[in-house]
């Protein structure tokens, strides 16, 4: 029997099934009588759909249904609405939100946009028929890059949206910032591009939809990160049915990172098809479809400016960003380059004045949506690149410049000029601890050793500050059964992070029960009335606190029952380490005893009935928490080829209370390697002329492999649990993506500093690095 405590590296409950091949992912589910669907995607970036001839496709043996945009329109479905929290322009008018349907109706606007659905008795028949869908398209001029899309005379993606502008946005004190710049001794300015990447979970998305005509109810199995939110959008906004008519279930989900957050066309298409055919419809995306049709992330051009005093004191930060949100608003795409990046501007530094302005711009590309960090990694990258540039340009030590401007613990709590409630932390200690781990004294010798092999070695440190997000409420429900099992159902959702362990660990620790006896349930609209799913590093902050709160309510009820059983008053019962003790008599009962009693009518008081301890609880977050930390990287560059080898990586994070250090480590390292990928190799490329996706497979889109990644050393600063939530947690899921890119890019710039290389744009591909060296030489 294993009763873990909060803070233990409890091994994972879910590992047994995953390690033995007994996980149940979407493609492992098959329903009797199921048929197979293929989605036909647009081969052009921008074109008028003149006709879609489906006759040949329908003639293929085994084909049951072909759906085009016109069929979809005629069925009368509603638009798929955007849920962006920033949805008004600077002047207060609503953002330009073009209608998004599951299929393009009269015009396609990006390569990969769904244009038709084919359903057949077999996948092979569906594929064959899909190839025979005859699209007659009239090509229109297209634009793929956001600054070009804003230029005069740029192709119009939406006829009624001039300048391709979804919305403009500002935050902060413009006058105060401008005044600070006017008085500054130095102004440092930098253009920064945050490259477009794709989350690329190894499991592609998939759906099985099943309709019961008798009850008029859909069951949708979907590899999604958010069953409740997407259920409501699909049912209410698109299908026009009550939410309870759509049972939405996520099985084991093979990674998400943001790509499985959104309301996608395909689940809606399968719901349509299953109702039309009266049979379960299965659709599993392939990697090509995933590269084309999963939401992309990042893609921001920014100009950042820092005003400083002569001694290096920061005075103000000014940022202008143009974000590429693709052809539609998608689910929360407009938020990322606006509110998403704005809130944490300035990072952990003392910045008296800040101003952020942004535009979210339409282009003929797959829309963007949150990818791990959703704007905060972009903000962190801008700041750290700018600070490093300032140090270089002013001839200051980059470490000293950071030391001088980091907020101290004494200055907290503090409301940042962007309105962020920075309550606690110790940024200088975290910074110094990271430096200490990275062996600065040995650096000179390592530089010399690299030089002897013809390599350039560099180092950089990147403090970061971010914030949590995602749905503000969470449900946790506990039910006890007489076989000793405890069912814990939570509306937050793991797509690999280990909630089945971490949330069960909190419940086990609080109640003093064995974690092995807890059956964890998530990702099912039938299991919890509400749920916020996964996103915004909310798992422990919302899910964890919901479980804590629920456990507290169970203990309260159990104390009353223990008092009855021990013939004492409730206030004469102490509960500790899973044991109820009557303080007057010292008689004790274990939690297990009390649970057993709660299911036995003979042992219950009159005002209780069996199942009396079953509890459901909704936790509501007050204020988002502020995870922070510091990443440091050491790199080696081969100047002959431009190849970068990250040879050292150190991280110290302040996530407040750490529920399970092993799981936190996994979040940090996974996020850091996604950051490494963005910094060094990942880049979604659309052909500049045709808008074809050049990086349409993993043959051309480079994901980090084990040999691209250094051994990482991690530590935590646990001296500042937040008081914003009862657990004191700050959210750990996305921080890795905030620290790694600036640390790595700045380390490469450090390595190449004496060759005269001053700037590099992510990803730092070998050719780009080699060219920068050549250009600096000439």
């Amino acid at each position, binding site marked *: 029997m294993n009763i873990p405590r909060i803070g233990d590296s409890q091994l994972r409950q879910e590992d047994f099934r995953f390690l033995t091949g007994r996980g149940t992912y979407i493609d492992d589910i098959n329903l009797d009588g199921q048929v197979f669907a293929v989605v036909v995607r647009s081969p052009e970036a921008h074109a008028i759909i003149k006709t879609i001839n489906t006759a040949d496709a329908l003639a293929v043996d085994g084909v049951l249904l072909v759906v085009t945009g016109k069929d979809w329109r005629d069925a009368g479905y509603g638009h798929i609405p955007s849920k962006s929290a920033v949805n008004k322009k600077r002047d207060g008018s609503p953002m330009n939100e073009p209608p998004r349907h599951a299929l393009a109706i009269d015009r396609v606007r990006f390569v990969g946009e769904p244009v038709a659905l084919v359903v057949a008795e077999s996948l092979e028949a569906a594929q064959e028929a899909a190839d025979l869908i005859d699209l007659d398209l009239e090509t229109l001029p297209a634009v793929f890059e956001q600054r070009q899309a804003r230029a005069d005379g740029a192709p119009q993606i939406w006829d009624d949206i001039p300048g391709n502008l979804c919305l403009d946005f500002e935050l902060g004190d413009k006058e105060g910032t401008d005044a600070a710049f006017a008085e500054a001794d130095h102004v440092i300015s930098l253009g920064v591009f945050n490259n477009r990447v794709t989350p690329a979970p190894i499991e592609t998305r998939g759906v099985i939809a099943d309709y019961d005509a008798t009850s008029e109810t859909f069951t949708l199995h979907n590899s999604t990160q958010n069953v409740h939110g997407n259920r409501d959008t699909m049912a209410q906004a698109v299908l026009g049915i009550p939410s309870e008519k759509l049972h939405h279930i996520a099985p084991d989900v093979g990674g998400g990172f943001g790509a499985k957050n959104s309301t996608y066309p395909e689940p809606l298409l399968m719901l349509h098809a299953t109702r039309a055919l009266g049979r379960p419809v299965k659709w599993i995306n392939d990697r090509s479809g995933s590269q084309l049709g999963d939401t992309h992330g990042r893609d921001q051009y920014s100009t950042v400016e820092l005003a400083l005093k002569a001694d290096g004191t920061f005075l103000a930060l000014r940022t202008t960003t143009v974000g590429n949100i693709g052809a539609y608003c998608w689910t929360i795409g407009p938020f990322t380059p606006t509110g998403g990046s704005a809130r944490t501007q300035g990072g952990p530094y003392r910045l008296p004045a800040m101003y952020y302005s942004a535009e979210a711009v339409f282009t003929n590309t797959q829309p963007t949506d949150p990818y791990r960090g959703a704007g905060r990694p972009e903000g962190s990258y801008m700041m750290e690149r700018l600070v490093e540039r300032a140090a270089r340009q002013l001839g200051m030590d980059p470490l000293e410049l950071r030391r001088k401007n980091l907020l101290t613990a004494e200055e907290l709590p503090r409301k940042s000029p962007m309105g962020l409630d920075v309550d606690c932390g110790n940024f200088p200690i975290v910074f110094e601890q990271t430096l200490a781990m990275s062996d600065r004294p040995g650096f000179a010798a390592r530089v010399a050793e690299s030089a002897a092999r013809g390599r350039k070695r560099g180092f950089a440190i990147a403090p970061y500050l971010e914030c949590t997000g995602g749905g503000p409420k969470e449900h946790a429900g506990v039910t006890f059964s007489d076989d000793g099992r405890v069912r814990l159902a939570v509306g937050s959702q793991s797509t690999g992070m280990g909630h089945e362990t971490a949330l069960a660990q909190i419940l086990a620790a609080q109640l003093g029960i064995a974690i092995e006896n807890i059956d964890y349930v998530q990702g099912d609209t039938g299991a919890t009335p509400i749920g916020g799913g996964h996103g915004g590093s909310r798992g422990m902050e919302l899910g964890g606190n919901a479980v804590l709160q629920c456990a507290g309510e169970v203990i309260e009820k159990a104390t009353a029952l223990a008092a009855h059983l021990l013939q004492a008053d409730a206030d004469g019962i102490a509960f500790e380490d899973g044991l109820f003790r009557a303080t007057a008599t010292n008689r004790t009962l274990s939690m297990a005893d009390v649970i057993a009693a709660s299911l036995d009518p003979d042992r219950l008081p009159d005002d209780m009935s069996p199942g009396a301890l079953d509890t459901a609880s909704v936790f509501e977050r007050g204020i988002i928490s502020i995870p922070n930390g510091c990443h440091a990287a050491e790199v080696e560059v081969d100047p002959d080829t431009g190849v970068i080898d990250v040879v050292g990586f150190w991280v110290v994070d302040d996530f407040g209370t750490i529920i399970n250090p092993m799981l936190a480590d996994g979040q940090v390292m996974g996020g850091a390697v996604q950051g490494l990928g963005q910094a060094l190799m990942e880049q979604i490329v659309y052909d500049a002329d045709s808008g074809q996706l050049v990086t349409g497979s*993993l043959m*051309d889109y480079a994901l980090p492999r084990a040999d691209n990644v250094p051994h990482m050393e991690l530590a935590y600063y646990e001296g500042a649990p937040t008081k914003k939530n009862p657990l004191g947690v700050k959210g750990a899921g996305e921080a890795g993506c905030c620290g790694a890119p600036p640390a790595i890019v700045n380390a490469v710039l450090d390595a190449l500093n004496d060759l005269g290389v001053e700037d590099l744009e992510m990803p730092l*591909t070998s*050719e780009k690095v080699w060219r920068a060296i050549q250009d600096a030489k000439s």
Partner: protein
Amino acid sequence: MYPFQYHRPASTDVATRLRAEHEDGQYMAGGQTLIPVMKQRLAMPSDIVDLSGINDLAGISRNGDRLIIGAMTSHAVVAGSAEVSAAIPALASLADGIGDPHVRNRGTIGGSIANNDPAADYPAAVLGLGASVITERREIAGDDFFTDLFETALEDGELITAVAFPLPKRAGYAKFPNPASRYAVVGVMVAETVEGVRVAVTGAGPCVFRVGAMETALAGDFSPAALKGITVDASNLNNDIHASAEYRQHLVGVMAGRAVLAAG
């Protein structure tokens, strides 16, 4: 995948006969390129003649001053072979860098050179080491074998049975891998053979090619320094998102120098 008939003959004779009977048929060696292509419905052979059942086609042997590698010998077997490592260590090292461990367990030398992917490693070995390609009909000099992008001197239905490598005095291979696919962006085999120095470049152009100027320079002075200033014509080189022609041109020089060092 489009439907096809599957055959797994046990002899070369039956294999070539089956292939002759089916005009739109295709041999399958390890299938590491062909199967992905068929999965993506980019090829539709009527018949697949799987060569894996022909035991004679796999194996490594020494015949005087030639190392004979059967066409169906996997990359992993070549990489792990003591015989290859003793005779031509550069060849073992090249095989050890193809694809990834799983691809190396299935992929074969015959399949690789018959396909003549411009980014494959083995063509550099065949051309750079001056090897001969042995078919059921004849022996084709490496210099004559690779004719163009995905094109070889093989006639319709002709089957590679083995590749014969003359033992070089020394040889080295250096590869610059594509970070995504791990194919060669540029791979250079440099060999000092009985006949002279050979330099073969894969990945850089539409088809593996020799660099005469480098061969001449290395014949005089077998050192990286001898290659200084020698470049290949960038106008004939590949240009894609991973490497421009100009960068490939540069990498040919760097990799050639590293191959010379590897040759020792």
